[in-house]
Every structure is written in structure tokens, then in C-alpha cells.
């Protein structure tokens, strides 16, 4: 079942001379992990804002086509209520922090306070999230004192706190070191196990290959590829459209000159190459 459905969606920002999102059809199915890739300025963030109903609610400009959430037009939802169902972490962790809370603990609880969760449940939940996101040492700190990577983890914890059905993450690991990046993807995998639907905008295709079911490649406001992670991330054609290939696929395609059953993950590549390379 699709939880979010876009039909022929076009959107233009008020001061722009052309549309940034062009005739997009996209069906986001319940319980899957989607990787949204493409060049900077391909329209990825705008598409995220459309899928969570933030556009057109909070932006001027013209949106045509239909956006459905749970089979109902997204405009029919109250934007506040929708924010609790579709969690979103913005690209720039430096602007995500609320600015009204003095500690990391309070920051994580802030969203829950707003939707009226009881203090006991809130405290327990904050504790769980602090463990899950490895924030123990930081919980008393002012969110503004944190490094970019730490802010990014706090921002994500604040979203998961609201227990949304859909989680949209716009470059959640851009400021993170490799280990923290993997940890974020492990959290994504955990959210998937809980039945959540996840959409992640990310340039690190090697990790998308490991964790995503589906990949959507956007170029200049249009969807140019949309398919299983395997289909899209083993297709050298995506390089011509601002996409990137995982290192192992690239190696297989460009160096071993093999075009069939191209591995996209490290484990697959090792398995295949252990058997030797057929010339």
C-alpha cells in the first residue's frame, strides 16, 4: 500500500522563472526505505517538502497535480498534526535545533511537550533515545555547544521521539564521521523493522546500497530513475544524470568490465570475487 502518492506534481517557487519540480509521479510504499539521490539543486529538498505537506502550506508558489497521504489529499490534514506523522530532519543541522531549550534532554522532549505527551512517558522516552543515539555524555549540554555531527544526532532523536509513521531525512549524515554515519543507518534499519517508512536524501550511495529498498534519482526536477536499489545502483547510466555509483559497482563496471549481475554492496562484491573473476 502506498502511504504517500504523488501524481503529476509540478511546483514553482514564487520568484523563479521555471518549475523546480516537474511532472513527478511517485508512490512511496508503506514500510520501505527510499534513497533519494541526485545533484545538488536537482530538487530533492523541495520534493521532501512537498511530500510532508510543507509545500504549499508554508510556501507561496504554484503546485499542480495531487499529493495524497494515506489516500487523502495532503492539504486536508492540519499541518501541525501532519508534522507528528511525517517526521522531517532538515539538511542544515545548524538550523534544526529549536533554540528555546537549554539542554539536549529538553531539546529531545520539546516536540513531545508540544503534542501533549505525559511527563512520565516523556522522561522514559527521552532516556531511551539518549541511549539509542549515544548522547549520554551530551545530555546536559546546551544544543548550541555541540559539534555539527552531534547536532545532527540530536535533531534526529527529536524526530524519532514523536514516533512518526514516515521519517524524511534530508542529508542526515552530512556532518558525521564514518562511524556515526553507519549508526544513523542502523537506526534507519531499526525504524524500518518497526514498520516505519523512511525517505533519506543522501550522497553516500555505498550506504544507500546497503540499507535502501528503493532508489529515486532526481535530475533537474524530474525523476530519471526509480527502481530497486539493485536496479538503479548497478546502472552506469545514472552517472550521466548526476547520480553516483557505489565504489564496488563502479569497480565492477569500469575496471572488471562486467555488466551483468553487478554487485552493489561490499558483501555481494566479496562473495562474487571470492569465486574468481570470469574473463
Amino acid at each position, binding site marked *: 500500500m502506498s502511504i504517500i502518492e504523488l501524481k503529476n506534481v509540478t511546483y514553482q517557487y514564487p520568484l523563479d522563472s521555471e518549475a523546480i519540480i516537474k511532472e513527478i509521479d511517485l508512490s512511496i510504499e508503506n514500510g520501505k526505505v527510499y534513497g533519494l539521490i541526485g545533484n545538488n539543486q536537482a530538487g530533492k529538498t523541495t520534493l521532501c517538502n512537498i511530500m510532508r505537506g510543507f509545500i504549499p502550506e508554508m510556501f507561496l508558489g504554484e503546485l499542480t497535480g495531487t499529493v495524497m497521504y494515506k489516500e487523502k489529499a495532503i492539504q486536508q490534514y492540519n499541518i501541525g498534526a501532519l508534522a507528528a506523522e511525517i517526521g522531517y530532519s532538515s539538511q542544515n543541522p545548524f538550523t534544526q535545533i529549536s533554540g528555546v531549550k537549554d539542554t539536549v534532554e529538553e531539546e529531545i522532549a520539546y516536540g513531545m511537550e508540544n503534542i501533549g505527551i505525559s511527563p512520565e512517558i516523556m522522561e522514559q522516552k527521552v532516556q531511551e533515545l539518549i541511549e539509542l543515539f549515544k548522547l549520554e555524555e551530551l545530555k546536559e549540554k546546551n544544543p548550541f555547544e555541540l559539534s555539527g555531527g552531534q547536532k545532527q544526532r540530536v535533531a534526529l532523536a527529536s524526530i524519532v521521539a514523536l514516533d512518526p509513521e514516515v521519517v524524511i531525512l534530508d542529508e542526515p549524515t552530512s556532518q558525521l564521521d*564514518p562511524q*556515526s554515519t553507519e549508526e544513523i543507518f542502523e537506526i534507519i534499519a531499526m525504524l524500518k523493522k518497526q514498520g516505519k517508512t523512511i525517505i533519506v536524501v543522501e550522497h553516500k550511495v555505498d550506504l544507500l546500497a546497503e540499507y535502501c529498498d528503493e532508489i529515486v534519482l532526481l535530475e533537474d526536477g524530474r525523476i530519471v530513475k526509480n527502481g530497486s536499489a539493485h536496479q538503479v545502483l548497478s546502472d552506469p547510466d545514472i552517472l550521466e544524470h548526476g547520480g553516483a555509483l557505489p565504489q564496488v559497482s*563502479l569497480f565492477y563496471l569500469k575496471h572488471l568490465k562486467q555488466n551483468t549481475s553487478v554487485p552493489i554492496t561490499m558483501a555481494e562484491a566479496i562473495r562474487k570475487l571470492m569465486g574468481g573473476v570470469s574473463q
Partner: protein
Amino acid sequence: MSILTLENVSFSYPNGFEATRNVSAEFQLGEAVAIIGQNGAGKTTTVKLMNGLLRPTQGRVLIDEKETNSLTTAQMAKRVGYVFQNPDDQIFQDSIEKEIAFGPKKQKLDASIVQTRVQEAAEACGLENVLQEHPYNLPYSKRKFITIAAVMAMDPEVVILDEPTAGQDRESTELLGGLIKSLTKKNKTVITITHDMEFVTKEFHRVLVFAEKKLQKEGTPREIFWDEELLQRSALKQPYICQLANALGYQEVMTMDELEKRITA
């Protein structure tokens, strides 16, 4: 002769939090050096000590083998340019052109030289067609290039880039790589903090690894990425191609070309 030297440098914030401990390192003109390590390992603090944004609580920072204690931050910044991790901490003008021109203007250069500097820096950073735009009309990842151009326009001998690869797409990462090469060709020193290990392997001659507030090791990418004990201690991983080679039993491989040769040999 080293253009920049850190001698047993430590730094603690006024609240007592120690961010970097006893770091010694030397940097030569014309080299590209990567700094890697976990978030919170002391990387940004260390580079801020290099251009006077922070002053060591212990140890010395030397530029051209001369003590920098008596120099103001503005004087140091002329020679060691620092591009902030968050571009929004740096940008304050209302057009990209003004933002890039601000530094050279402050250096009281002739208008024609300022003009040339702005043009060159903008071209190197792919901004030549958007000079009249407001910096905030560009997305975060492109704003980073504005701040790089602004530092380049001051023509410092050392350019420090703090996580320039964060949030960049493949094309922009390639643009960054080209930019670093062109700077080192002009005999500039480029010091770059990054989490992108493929980028490190491709663009840098020397790597410094930080963990737990300390410099753990310096060496070539090969010396760093095949030191498994170091990687474990520093919570780092090999670049993907090294991982693949390692699993297949080919030691010391760094590039796809090398791995191809080993596999097809």
C-alpha cells in the same frame, strides 16, 4: 622550511574542557594534507589554532618558523586562511561578489587587483555566473564554495578547509579536488578536514589522524589506511576499495587500478 608549525600545542576552553592535547605537526608549502578522525576528536580546534582564531593554552604556533604570539588574528589570517565548517558562520554580505571581495578590499589592494582576485576565485569555485546573487539564494552546499572563494581571494599561503565535502554531490566533490590540486600547484598548502575517505585517498599526500583529542599518527594514505590497529583505535574505516581488497587478501591496495591489477594478475 615549514610554512606552519605546531609545537606541543594544547587548547582548553575557558570552562576547562580540553579540546586538543599536545599536538606537534609541520606543514610545507605546496602540500595537501588531510585531517581525519571522529566528531569531537579535536580536529576543528586544532585548525583554529593554526590561524589564530584560538590561541594555544600551551605550546607554540609558528608561521614561517616565527612565533605568532605577537601577531593579531587578522595578521595571521592573511597568511593562513580558514574556511568555516558552517558557511553561515562566515557569510555576512548581501551579494556573492561583495562577500568574495571583502577580504582583498580589507587588505587595501588596488581595485583592479581586487577585481582580478574575485574573478579568479569565483571561477575556481564555479561561481562566476552568480556573483550578483544573494549568498542565501544558493543552497548550503554551494554556500560552502562562496566561503572557499572568499578565503582564496585573500591569497593566503595556507588554506584550511573544514569539512568542505559535507553535503556535496559527486560533481562538487570533483570540483573541490581540482581546486585543491590547483592551489598546491601554486605552491599553497591546503589542510582539509574531511570524513570522506575516498576523497582523502584521491587528493592528499599526507594524512593526520586525530582521536581522543590527540594526533595519533601521520603518514601517506597507504600508511594510514592499512594500519588496522590505528583505524580501530580511531574508530575509522578503510576506504571501500581497501575493504574489498582486504577481504580478498590483497594487502596495501589503495586504488581501483591497483586492485584490478592484483585480481587479473
